[in-house]
């Protein structure tokens, strides 16, 4: 009896320990390949197994990233209800790998948050055989050797159009949009005469087998002549007021005192303080006009008197 009791007790302890240490959920993340090429279907599935005798809802997070995070595919969180001891298979991703995917290593990560625990799993995979990036630069220059790029040219200058790339034998389709919106097909390298003023746009589509087709453009401008912007400065700080250079107490108070002799009258100066302010003179002309009128009246008066006489 004692032995039976002991065995029964031991079983209970073992079961209890098991239930304590066993995960409430088992997860298994699977992808259909480790290496993918264009045209392959990428399928990721997750198998969930509820180890508990009661149901609950799990939340599943999943994301695919490549190394430089130029590709990030984060799914909205999935809520999955699991019944007691239920096993479920969920398709997380199912998409085709096309040629535009960047080659390299990718990582699928998931996190399953369940009743009382969090389970994580990751799967690495590679994408290969997709199109490579085509590196190409457009060059707009003033000389054939194109030692230095330019953006702005004077009218009737010759403009050299070219491209550079480390990849050989690129197929180039170039067209140039002129300021008047006419479009001309070009074969690079080439040169044009800048007859129209305004903005030109060179658009190039570069392609080569095994590379992503790349379309890029650059703009350059043509002006009648280089800009000559006038400097209208009128203050040349040197502690000397120089009215001849346009300095005065307003334009250059650093050099000219408020009531300086600077060819302009400062109304804030008191009477007579600024030599540039004209003194108010007696209006003699008014007096003269008045006197002329008086003289005229006097003549009439005198004539009137003399007539009587």
């Amino acid at each position, binding site marked *: 009896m004692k032995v039976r009791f002991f065995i029964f007790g031991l079983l209970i302890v073992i079961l209890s320990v098991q239930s304590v240490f066993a995960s409430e959920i088992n997860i298994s993340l699977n992808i259909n390949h480790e290496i993918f090429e264009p045209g392959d279907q990428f399928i990721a599935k997750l198998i969930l197994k509820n180890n508990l005798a009661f149901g609950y809802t799990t939340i599943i*997070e999943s994301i695919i*990233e490549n190394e430089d*995070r*130029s*590709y*990030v*595919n*984060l*799914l*909205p*969180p999935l809520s999955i209800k699991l019944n007691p001891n239920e096993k479920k298979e969920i398709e997380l991703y199912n*998409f085709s790998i096309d040629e535009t995917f960047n080659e390299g290593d990718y990582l699928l*990560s998931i*996190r399953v*948050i369940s009743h009382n625990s*969090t389970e*994580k799993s990751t799967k690495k995979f590679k994408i290969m055989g997709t199109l490579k990036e085509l590196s190409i630069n457009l060059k707009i220059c003033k000389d054939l050797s194109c030692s230095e790029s330019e*953006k*702005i040219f004077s009218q009737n200058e010759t403009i050299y159009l070219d491209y550079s790339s480390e990849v050989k034998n690129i197929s180039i389709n170039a067209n140039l949009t002129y300021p008047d919106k006419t479009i001309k097909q070009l074969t690079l390298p080439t040169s044009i005469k800048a007859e129209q003023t*305004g*903005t030109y*746009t060179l658009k190039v589509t570069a392609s080569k087998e095994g590379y992503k087709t790349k*379309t890029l*453009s650059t*703009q350059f*401008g*043509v*002006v009648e002549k*280089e*800009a000559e*912007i*006038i*400097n*209208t*400065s*009128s*203050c*040349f700080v040197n*502690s000397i007021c120089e009215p001849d250079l346009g300095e005065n107490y*307003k*334009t*250059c*108070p*650093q050099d*000219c005192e*408020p009531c300086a002799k600077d060819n302009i009258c400062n109304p804030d*100066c*008191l*009477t*007579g303080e600024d*030599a540039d302010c004209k003194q108010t003179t007696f209006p*003699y002309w008014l*007096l003269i006009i008045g*006197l002329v009128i008086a003289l005229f009246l*006097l*003549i009439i008066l*005198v*004539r009137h008197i*003399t007539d009587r*006489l």
Partner: protein
Amino acid sequence: MKSSAKILVIILIGIFLVQNISLIIARGPPTPEAVNKFENGPPFPETELCLDSDHGNNPEVGGLVAYNQKDFKDFCSGNILTEYFCSNQNFKGPPTPESTNFGISNRTYNCTSYCQNKYGLTYRGSCSLSFEGFGFCNCTLAIPVKNEKDPNKYSKKNAFLISDKNWREILSLVPLTTWTSEEDSRWCKNAYGAPKNICVYPTLIYHREGESFDADSIIYFFQQYKPDNLTIIGNTPQELDNLLIVKPKLGAGLKEEQIKKISFNDYFSYWKSFNSIVVVDYDNYANGLMGSVWASLKNIPIIFVNSNNLENYKNVIDNRKIYIIGKIDSSVSDYINKNAKSSISYTLEELQKEYIKETNTDKIILVNPNDLDLKVIKRFLPEKSTKSFSELFSKISLAAPFLAAGKYEVIIDTTSTDYKKIDAFVENKIDAIGIGPEYLTILASPVSIPISRQATQKDGCEYAKFIEVDGRFYGELDHDNLVDLSTGRIFGVSISDASSYVARSIFIKDIVSNNFDALIVLPGYGTSTTKDEMIRFSKYFWTPNIINQLDSYYFYAGWYDVLSRIFKIKNLYDNSNLIIYYNHGSKTAFSILISSYDLSSNHIYLNNSIIMDVACLTCYWSGNPNSFCVQNIRRGALGFQGAVDISYWNREFDNILNGFILEGKSIGTAYKEARNQDYKDNIYNFCLGLRGDIFYAWIGDPTIKFDEMRK
């Protein structure tokens, strides 16, 4: 009477009158020559009694000397006073040219020199007449009474352009291009949304490194704003001059005669008169930021002075009221004490308080003044110039005073780059300066004020390494995790981006079109997302009420629907005012829709767009100039919801659109409320220890309102 007799009478009367006119004219004010004749005194005998009503040689009192039965009045000739006095009362000893032994003498005074010699340079002198008509030197303090600009210096749509080389010149420009004046506001340019008495002209700061420069965003602003005149302060590279006159799309399309260059020395000439001036120490940039905003409010110049350059500014300090901000050299303060009309000293904090009191502002701008030196070193080639530059994300704070002055905002500054310290600083500063803030605009790149912090284990994020801090920390004041301040951040690859953004924000009404058009692109989360699914989803935010407020819209939903029309949709990106995107993102792209590379290689500039999205990483900070949020702002976006890392599927579009478009709230307030709603709704964010929107920062001015977005 015979006619000959009549003529004789007339001639006689005429002679009489002409004689009298001559006499009247001869009795006018004495000429300098006349004064000189009396220089040695009249030849009267010494024994005669001499009486002087002003009691001697007293030029400040008008008087009369009675001598030898004749009167000699003190009199003025221009500003020269001739002062009579009895020589025996005033001079003893041997005769001098000014004193004689004849009992009466005179002396001439230049009243200006007399008053300044006697009372100092703050005084002016003028020769005036007393009530009785006696001349005297009138010594008075010379004070211009008004602060006004010279209207002749500004055209209707004048713009100003300056390089980022000299911060003193840039800050000095603040009150020159943006100022408060009831009187000037009758003729000057006003900005929509700003108080009516603010005069404001766009000021663009371009980044320059030797002959390299960045003006891409500025040129685009000029294309939008179409200034009638451009004033350039200082020298510019020839390539930039050319760019200004090249027709769009490459250039600004200005005519040569619309552009002029001035020197910084011409600064004061923009004021017709000013009675006060702000003085800041030559090396104190932080004080200068707020000092320039104060100068703008008062419509007065600001100068940066120390003992070395004081000489240049003595004339503008003399007789004026001086606002001293912070500490200055003792030689400068001595000079001010002696020669200024008056002075008032503020610490930076006192000035901030005073500014808040005067403007009643509820808007704060946060800057790091050390950002003049903080930078990311990386080569970047602008689209509109041929030479690359390498000092990126620097000097953004230079744009702050222009925004602050244009919209009445107070600048607070911290030199810390630790988000916790900055967070504490903002809270403490708000208490200290006594502002009741609604808005927080961060004018700094993340290199100066972090936009994100590292996620911790406690945060429980599996994929994100960074958490947004702009709204979540700096804009959160009471530690309840709800954002309290309507928060936004303005920055760019260089100051050119930030300053043209500020100009766009202030002059929004001048650059927006008549229509407000939307582009809604909802591919969903994966290839299996159908059009119907996304249409159903969109109903939570895309409502008839919102649609009614638009002039037109394009709506694309479902993975394949979007993908099959992607070239058409891309072409709509540059013309849409509201862009909503729901899909994946990366550091440099809205994954399916458009990338930074697309924007630059196709020369795409945006139509003042507000861009809302669910897309990871679009504002991830790594110092990359091709960061998607950075490129959108550089190209004319007015607002961008950018994720600082792998983020979450936020549910904020409804609150943002309703608040911004239907309820008239600012974009910052609408966004703040949207974030708080996500917090309350506990939208799943992939971080077990944090709740709500912990990823999306608002890039742009949070004060912008929907009614500004249409002409």
